[in-house]
């Protein structure tokens, strides 16, 4: 073994590894492994194999399974080995079973008994080995078999055992939260364990628990803060230092927890400000782990109730990350920036050039992260630049997954922020051209619907302009080879519906194009079907308009071909077309009215037009119809099914003697799931960066009485790492409100604006002498971030009156900001009753109403400027939910 210094394995194993290492092809390797498997099968079955030999065989089995070959013939021997008394054999056995078997494997039954026995062992190393196995092998059914022992081990004198027992309990919680829900208080108890290692391990389950139900743990804020403080002040034993940082992994976990607890909760957040600020100051930026802590602090600052000082510190830290040469740090910087702009949008501006550098970085991970950031900060002013960039990137990559993701983001941004019809159509064309088969078919349907319904309620000219430009671009594109099917479907549909409407193109021209499409994609029935239907519409409109129908010969032959098609759908369409063009103008107009794709079709569900026919039949002596359900005695099939399920559940294994009561079964109530519903989860990082922080209703941290009886006193933690002294906890129920302080924030915002602009300038000036910034880059920066500074200047000038006299463009930016950017309290206060917004409403361009189309209420919110923020937030999110 390794402890003997050399390679303790036999020469055979050494040769095996060597020959596999030297194998020149996969086939050769497979051959070697197959021979090995044959050897092992034979050897293992020999009756007089010594245990020592067996141990090596099992390790060899593990090795060949790691190389991807089936070693299942030896599983049972691994199980047997875990029964051995010798610790080393037992450990090998446990290792093998944890790697070989999943928790639902049949052989697990044979191990549970051993685990039960080993958990009771006097030798703590055996207990540890068993706990390792418990974490991997125990499933929902077998939890009750080992749960009592595991709970007992939480109090074991050895910290290594306590640590592993905590993790085992956590694993049970993940597997089946209901079976251990009554034991969750143990995690709180272990938080004040005398051993920092156990405390650190306990943070893992607590993090998960808090993620699920943040409110029940608000009372721990003070404890977490004081632990973090002690860790940061180096009160832990030296052995926990890592690269001169005091217990950095514990710090990171604690910051993550604070991040959850402080989110949208002003009062909890206030406890954290000092310690987080201290940590940010103390971070050693030369080491990787120091930066990791700093990054985690920024995440925490961006998540908890905003504090201007901390935000400034975070912005500084981000600029250090972004200016670093390390790609890792740049990546973290971009990620952190994406978080911070949610509460402090102006930060993005300081770093514009750094962000653009990252966009052009050869590192794909960094590039992708940067696009994610841009996606978060897209608004009407910079949508064109960002989406163009995204499309270029989309075209450049081959990975289907990311292509799809980028494409759908482009579509989403285009639909939301498009500045003009033409741009929108062009963008969609590009997306469809390059990723048409990857995007969701719903996107294609959406596009058709948008073109059909138009963007405004009343603005018909804008709608028809949109359609004309769509038709025009499609006529141009349609001839290109290799268009994706979904895109062709859209093209055919639009050409059929609107191709001849504006009179720019003749029916035969469009028909010719459609025939070409059908011919060029003869293997794609869906495209052909769309093309034929489009043809039918074109000809129907011609007939209805009273013009003479002049069918192209190629069209004729296409229809003939399709009426003999194997696809009944295509056949039917071809015959329908022939039938329609045979009718007179009046009838055709009724069948195919022009531009009626949005009209509802009325369906007479009661089939009243058949009444007279039915009446007639009755009179001739027909029997009335009896519904199927009334014909025989109704049999309720579901009864049987319920029965079945019940039976299945009682088949479960029992590991305990029958007469013992099973408390866990009684405890299996859905308490946990119900509490998660009541409590708002921590908001996930939203794709939009607007507002949550300000809007999130404050969560009262009243802990319910049920859990309070488990509650442990944690005040002792503040003093020392010893036994906790159980004194009364501070009253934990608080009702923080984050809304009251609009005034305080106003000042804060103003201050940070000024500061950030100052820094911005210095950053630029510092940067420019070193690096020659190409004008191209600067232009890009201006177009990405410019809109923001423009509108900000507008605002900070205090001259809201001035905006009346400024040009339209500036006014528009202002308004756009009103609609799409997070509403800061400054605006809320200052814009109250301010006529600027109202005055800019008449200058609304049709695409503003595109946003309105997505959710009408937004229009209303733009009008009532005071409540913009409040109504906006749900609107945007509901859009994403689509």
């Amino acid at each position, binding site marked *: *073994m*390794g*402890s*003997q210094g050399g*390679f*303790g*394995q036999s020469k055979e194993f050494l040769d095996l*590894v060597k020959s*596999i*290492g030297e194998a020149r092809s996969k086939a050769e390797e497979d051959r070697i492994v197959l021979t090995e498997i044959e050897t092992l099968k034979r050897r293992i079955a020999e009756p007089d194999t010594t245990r020592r030999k067996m141990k090596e065989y099992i390790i060899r089995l*593990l*090795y060949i399974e*790691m*190389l*991807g*070959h089936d070693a299942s013939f030896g599983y049972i021997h691994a199980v047997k080995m875990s029964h051995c008394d*010798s*610790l080393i054999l037992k*450990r090998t056995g446990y*290792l093998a079973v944890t*790697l070989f078997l*999943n*928790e639902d494997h049949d052989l697990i039954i044979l191990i549970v008994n051993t685990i039960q026995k080993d958990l009771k062992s*006097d*030798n*703590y*190393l055996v207990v540890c080995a068993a706990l390792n196995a418990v974490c991997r092998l125990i499933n929902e059914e077998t939890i009750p078999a080992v749960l009592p022992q595991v709970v007992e081990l939480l109090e074991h*004198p*050895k910290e290594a055992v306590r*640590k592993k027992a905590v*993790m085992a309990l*956590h*694993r049970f919680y993940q597997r089946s939260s209901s079976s251990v829900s009554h034991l969750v208080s143990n995690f709180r108890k272990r938080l004040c364990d005398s051993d920092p*290692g156990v405390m*650190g*391990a306990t943070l*893992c*389950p607590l993090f*998960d628990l808090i*993620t699920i139900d943040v409110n029940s743990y608000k009372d721990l804020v003070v404890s977490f803060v004081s632990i973090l403080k002690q860790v940061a002040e180096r009160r832990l034993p030296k*052995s926990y230092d*890592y*690269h001169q940082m005091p217990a*950095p*992994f*514990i710090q*990171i976990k604690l910051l*993550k927890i604070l991040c959850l607890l402080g989110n949208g909760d002003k009062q909890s957040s206030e406890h954290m400000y000092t310690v987080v600020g201290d940590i940010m100051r103390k971070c050693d930026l030369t080491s990787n*782990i120091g930066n*990791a802590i700093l*990054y985690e602090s920024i995440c925490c600052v961006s998540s908890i109730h905003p504090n201007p000082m901390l935000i400034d510190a975070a912005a500084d830290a981000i600029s250090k990350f972004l200016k670093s040469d390390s*790609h*890792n740090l*740049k*990546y973290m910087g971009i990620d952190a920036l994406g978080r911070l702009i949610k509460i402090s949008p102006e930060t993005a501006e300081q770093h514009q050039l750094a962000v653009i550098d990252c966009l052009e970085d*050869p*590192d794909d*991970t*960094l590039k992708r992260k940067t696009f994610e950031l841009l996606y978060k900060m897209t608004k009407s002013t910079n949508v064109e630049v960002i989406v163009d960039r995204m499309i270029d990137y989309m075209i450049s990559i081959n990975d289907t997954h*990311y292509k799809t993701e980028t494409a759908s983001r482009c579509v989403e941004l285009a639909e939301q922020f498009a500045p003009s019809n033409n741009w929108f159509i062009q963008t969609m064309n590009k997306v469809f051209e390059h990723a048409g088969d990857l995007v969701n078919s719903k996107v294609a349907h959406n596009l058709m619907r948008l073109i059909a319904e138009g963007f405004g309620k009343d603005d018909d000219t804008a709608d028809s302009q949109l359609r004309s430009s769509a038709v025009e671009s499609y006529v141009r594109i349609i001839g290109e080879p290799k268009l994706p099917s979904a895109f062709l479907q859209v093209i055919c549909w639009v050409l059929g519906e609107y191709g001849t409407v504006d009179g720019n193109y003749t029916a035969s021209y469009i028909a010719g194009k459609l025939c070409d499409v059908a011919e060029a994609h003869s293997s794609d029935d869906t495209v052909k079907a769309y093309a034929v239907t489009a043809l039918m519409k074109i000809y129907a409109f011609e007939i209805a308009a009273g013009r003479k129908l002049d069918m192209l010969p190629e069209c004729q032959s296409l229809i003939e071909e399709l009426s003999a098609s194997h696809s009944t759908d295509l056949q039917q369409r071809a015959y329908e077309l022939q039938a329609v063009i045979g009718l007179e103008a009046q009838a055709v107009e009724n069948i195919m009215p022009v531009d009626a794709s949005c009209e509802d079709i009325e369906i007479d569900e009661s089939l009243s037009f058949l009444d007279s026919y039915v009446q007639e039949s009755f009179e001739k002596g027909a029997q009335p119809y009896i519904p199927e359900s009334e014909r025989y005695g109704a049999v309720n099939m579901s009864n049987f099914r319920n029965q079945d399920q019940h039976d299945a559940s009682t088949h479960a294994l029992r590991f305990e003697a029958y007469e013992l009561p099973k408390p866990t079964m009684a405890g299996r109530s859905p308490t946990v799931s119900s509490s998660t519903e009541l409590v708002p989860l921590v908001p996930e990082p939203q794709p939009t960066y607007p507002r949550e922080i300000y809007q999130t209703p404050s969560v009262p941290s009243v802990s319910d009485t049920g859990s309070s009886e488990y509650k442990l006193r944690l005040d002792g933690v503040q003093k020392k790492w010893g036994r906790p002294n159980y004194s009364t906890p501070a009253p934990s129920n608080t009702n923080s409100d984050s809304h009251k302080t609009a005034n305080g924030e106003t000042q804060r915002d103003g201050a940070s604006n000024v500061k950030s602009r100052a820094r911005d300038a210095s950053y630029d000036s510092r940067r420019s002498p070193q690096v020659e910034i190409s004008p191209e880059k600067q232009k890009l920066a201006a177009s990405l971030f410019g809109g923001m500074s423009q509108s900000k200047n507008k605002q900070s000038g205090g001259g809201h009156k001035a905006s009346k006299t400024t040009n339209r463009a500036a006014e528009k930016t202002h308004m756009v900001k009103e609609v799409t950017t997070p509403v800061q309290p400054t605006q809320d206060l200052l814009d109250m009753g301010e006529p600027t917004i109202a005055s800019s409403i008449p200058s609304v361009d049709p695409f503003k109403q595109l946003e309105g189309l997505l959710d009408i209420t937004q229009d209303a919110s733009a009008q009532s400027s005071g409540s913009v923020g409040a109504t906006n937030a749900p609107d945007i999110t509901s859009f994403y939910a689509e």
Partner: protein
Amino acid sequence: MIRAVIVMNDKGKPRLVKFYEFQPVEKQQELIRSIYGVLCSRAEKVSNFIRADSILGPDARLVYKTYATLYFVFIFDTSENELAILDLMQVFVEALDKCFSNVCELDIVFNFNKVHSILDEIILGGQVIETSSSEVVKAVEEAYRCSSSNSSFTPVVN
């Protein structure tokens, strides 16, 4: 949580594979192959992070680092911090180094049950339980000393 720890050499041959959520053998091999493919395509002097959602589902992130001829790969979800994982990897390698004194690829091949024990001291059930390499080495050495000296020996619990 951490979803997997994989050590493979620069030819893509796995040296240590540990998934914290069970994956069938074929799936494991497929994942190792695709991860190796991604790692090979990485240029030098780029970040150590890869978004792995196309390979391992949403939220999956991957941190890798090369030590001599070996790739160390940790796969985890959003609840971990990339930079910290990079250091956790360092802890793991430091522990290996202490156990094998100047660890090399062959040490890991021939003692991979011991390597597993070391990893088990650091990560249990996908959660980090110990981050001090000396503590890890202490625990592992203790287990091996006890078991190799005498199989019937039982240390006294204090």
